[in-house]
């Protein structure tokens, strides 16, 4: 079935607005008093936007059924590429010891984990849509957990903690969307909570007590209940071991600094503090486009990638921040609307999964600039400099437009 007009104008307009806003910020990020290589990057970002928009248009020409059919092969291909990072991967910046970049012949091709987010959403949607009953029990969730778990393991092994958080976010969002009961989700998340709270004994103890109460109320199969409790005990105990042996020093440092940024102001905490200073000194109206002193004088780290939102805060002030965040929120509301109006379960799940992926990116990235979130190096959709990420964002836009076009009602004619 082929429709003549497949376009969700508000969605495309929002994505374009955000992209142009983003490129302007990448341009501004290059405007430093001592010019660096960043000064020219906005040009390649423009090229990438053009490429991405074309790719998005091509995506809209494909049917949702094609995406469903392509979920399996693209997912397998993703796993292969992620596995190949062990051989071909290389790091960047202060995460140089990680291997999240696909490198061939010394040329860094891109970060496969960005595109993996889309294929994992497709695969997860396919797996979840194929079940007749909504999974209510933890044991029923083994397939979706496996679908996300394998790429998470591969990416974690490559040293990209930030993307893992995004995958976990996608998993929980899509399980929620398919109707998994909240209590089940909480029990599924319980080992992660144990992991996070493990370092503080009393907190973990309190959580464990709460968990026992929840398990008792949930009345699971005996095996299920025991494994949830065991998983929590394991996480609570192996967490310190992971902390000691598995986390890279920079990862450990970043998490520590998240807890107390002033503990090490010259090193890792420096980034967060300088970002906060940049944003805080922006005030209502900011210091003016390209005029941010923190950025100009190189106090702001990674100002064109991870901390690009700090440039927004410094130069455009609270007003600029509000505009940017509002644009994102409208984008998310629009995506949720597409998910609610989608024709079938698969489409709906894909739309919501892509929205969730963006949301985790925005929440984590923006939250990080104000030290509400740990520094994990997740880029900001449409803003952060980076080709593969821009492409991934616009591919998602293309898929959403297609789903919107196939959905109930003409979304482009409706006000949001």
């Amino acid at each position, binding site marked *: 079935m082929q429709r003549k007009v497949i376009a969700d104008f508000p969605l495309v307009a929002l994505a374009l607005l955000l992209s142009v806003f983003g490129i302007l910020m990448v341009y501004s990020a290059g405007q430093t*008093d001592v010019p660096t290589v960043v000064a020219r990057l906005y040009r390649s970002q423009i090229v990438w936007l053009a490429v991405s928009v074309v790719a998005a248009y091509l995506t809209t020409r494909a049917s949702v059924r094609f995406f469903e059919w392509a979920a399996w092969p693209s997912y397998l291909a993703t796993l292969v590429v992620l596995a190949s990072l062990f051989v071909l991967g290389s790091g960047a910046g202060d995460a140089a010891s990680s291997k999240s970049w696909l490198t061939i012949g010394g040329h860094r091709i891109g970060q496969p984990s960005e595109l993996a987010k889309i294929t994992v959403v497709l695969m997860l949607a396919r797996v979840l849509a194929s079940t007749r009953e909504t999974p209510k029990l933890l044991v029923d969730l083994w397939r979706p957990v496996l679908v996300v778990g394998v790429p998470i393991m591969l990416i974690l092994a490559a040293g990209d903690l930030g993307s893992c958080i995004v995958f976990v976010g996608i998993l929980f969002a899509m399980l929620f*969307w398919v109707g998994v009961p909240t209590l089940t989700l909480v029990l599924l998340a319980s080992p992660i909570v144990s992991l996070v709270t493990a370092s503080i004994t009393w907190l973990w103890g309190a959580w464990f007590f709460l968990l026992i109460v929840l398990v008792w109320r949930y009345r699971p199969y005996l095996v299920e209940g025991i494994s949830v409790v065991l998983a929590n005990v394991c996480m609570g105990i192996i967490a310190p071991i992971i902390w000691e042996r598995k986390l890279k020093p920079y990862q450990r440092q970043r998490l520590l600094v998240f807890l107390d940024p002033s503990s090490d102001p010259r090193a890792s905490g420096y980034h967060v503090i300088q970002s906060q200073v940049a*944003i*805080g000194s922006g005030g*209502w109206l900011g210091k003016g486009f390209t005029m941010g002193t923190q950025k100009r004088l*190189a106090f702001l780290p990674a100002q064109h990638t991870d901390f690009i939102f700090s440039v927004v805060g410094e130069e455009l002030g609270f007003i600029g921040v509000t505009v940017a965040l509002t644009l994102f*929120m409208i984008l998310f509301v629009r995506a*949720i609307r597409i*998910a609610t109006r989608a024709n079938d379960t698969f489409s709906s799940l894909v739309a919501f999964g892509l929205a969730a992926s963006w949301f985790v990116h925005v929440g984590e990235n923006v939250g990080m600039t104000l030290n509400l979130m740990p520094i994990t190096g997740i880029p900001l959709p449409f803003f952060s400099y980076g080709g593969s990420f821009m492409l991934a964002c616009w591919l998602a836009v293309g898929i959403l437009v297609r789903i919107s076009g196939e959905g109930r009602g003409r979304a482009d004619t409706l006000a949001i």
Partner: protein
Amino acid sequence: MSFHPNDVARRGQVATMGLAAAFVLLLGAFFRTQVLENSQYVLQSETNRLREVPLPAPRAIIYDRNGRVIAENVPGYSVSVLAPTADSLRAMLRRLGETIPLSADQIELAVRRYRRAPNRPTAILADASFDIVSVLEEHRVEFPGLIIQSAPKRHYPDGAAVASFVGYTGEITEAELASRAYRGYKAGQQVGKGGLEKEYESRLRGREGTRFVEVDARGRVVRDAGARADILPESPAPLYTNIDLDLQRLVVSLFGDTLQGGAIALDPETGDVLALHSAPTFDPNRFIGGIPADYWRALTTDPRRPLYNKVIQARYPPGSTWKLATATYALENGIATLDDMMPVPCTGGFQFGNRYFHCWDPHGHGNITLARAIEVSCDVYFYQLGLKIGIERLVGGGVALGFRERTGIDLPNESAPLFPYSVNYYNKRFGPRGWNTSVVLNLAIGQGENAQTVASMARFYTALATDGEEARPTIVRRQEPVRARVFQLSDTQMDGLRRALTGVLTRGTAAGEQVHGLAIAGKTGSAQNPDDPTKTHAWFVGFAPADHPKIVVAVMLEFGGHGGHAARLASAIIAHYLKVTPQATVMPPTEG
């Protein structure tokens, strides 16, 4: 499968609400940071980017009583460095050392300074020569944190001639920075190190200005000026002194390069210090911007001690100049009159117990009055006068006349004169039976346990020159003179004393040093020199005109021999001040 449209719509609402909550949370966080805590972050971002470069303030100009400049400021250059870390500072200074002479010690000193105030530019050269500055300007691009700026430099037009009272300035030391007195000072600043510069530091010091330069995260100076409006340095009001620069120059020229000792000229009514010189002295201009090591070594190893002030710090036995104290006490307490004679006439010596005390003149002075004894400085007369007064009263009298107190001159490090506080001093020092009344003989002629500064003798003579009130010597102009009564004599007694003192120069020990047409009153003295008994220190303290004194002069020549030598200098000083041309005369017989 609960994918009924109603279920989906409900979940969509939940998701939208969650989204809205996250939106509000984020915006709230930004509102707090950007709007509520804005000022705090603005301050932080300013401290981040702006470095304060101090603009040294010129010190106050010091003038003499006629408005001539004693100390001023001339343009100089200072070199300092802004560095992000101590290591990068050290690395930069090593590279700098390839271009300009910079020792390892200087580098370590700079690093220590940096550690104390990392956000201030670290001073490298306080007074850079024009050559060094031009070399550095050439290599400016290689040293991005380098700050070269003009800094006012202290200059004394008369150099060594004013060093004895004006002192000098120098960079504040680490010990001074740590002390309470220098609270608020910062490393690298110039402070007064001696003389008026130190005494009046708080009035001479200007208020430092600030220039704001913009630096980036690596400490490179990005913008040199205009990042924020400069705060200009403020120069304090000038300091007016009582010094008569003409007279000062004359005093210095009288000492020349050969004589050593000290001289002070006072206005007897007000205590104004008209001139003060300690010879030999140093050139304070060479001290500015760091004392050259060889010059410092030369000054500290010179046996004539150029850095030691011989007017206010060195103490000498006052010798016969102190006989006036003995005489004043006797007159005031009715122990003797100016016309009284002593039982034993002077035959060149005096037998006391088993000891024979010589008079300076072996020929003897015969049977003379007190007035004549002053003129010829007869020791035998004063031995007997001392015995008549008694040791307890003579010591008490000396204390009452102020011979144990500092003059209170407005210069740092003044020494207190040495004089027994009471007879107990002798008991303590020699034991109750370890001494006898013979000490009074020595004390009465200004020898023995008595050592005075030149300034304290001059102060005593201001009382003789007026009506018994001592004036506190002051260099910096003051509204009200500080005067204190030390003795009370009748007008006849005062006239008699002055006549006797005038006689010293007309027919006494300094005969021939008088100035034609001018009545100078004064007293010679020669003080035993513990180092070399054959070379006594020569004293002269006097005033003029005798009937209405306008100037008191005290001169002390180390190893000067006869007091007459000192009298000749004093006469010249007085004559110059009172605009009378001195007459050359033949050398008279003087006391030994």
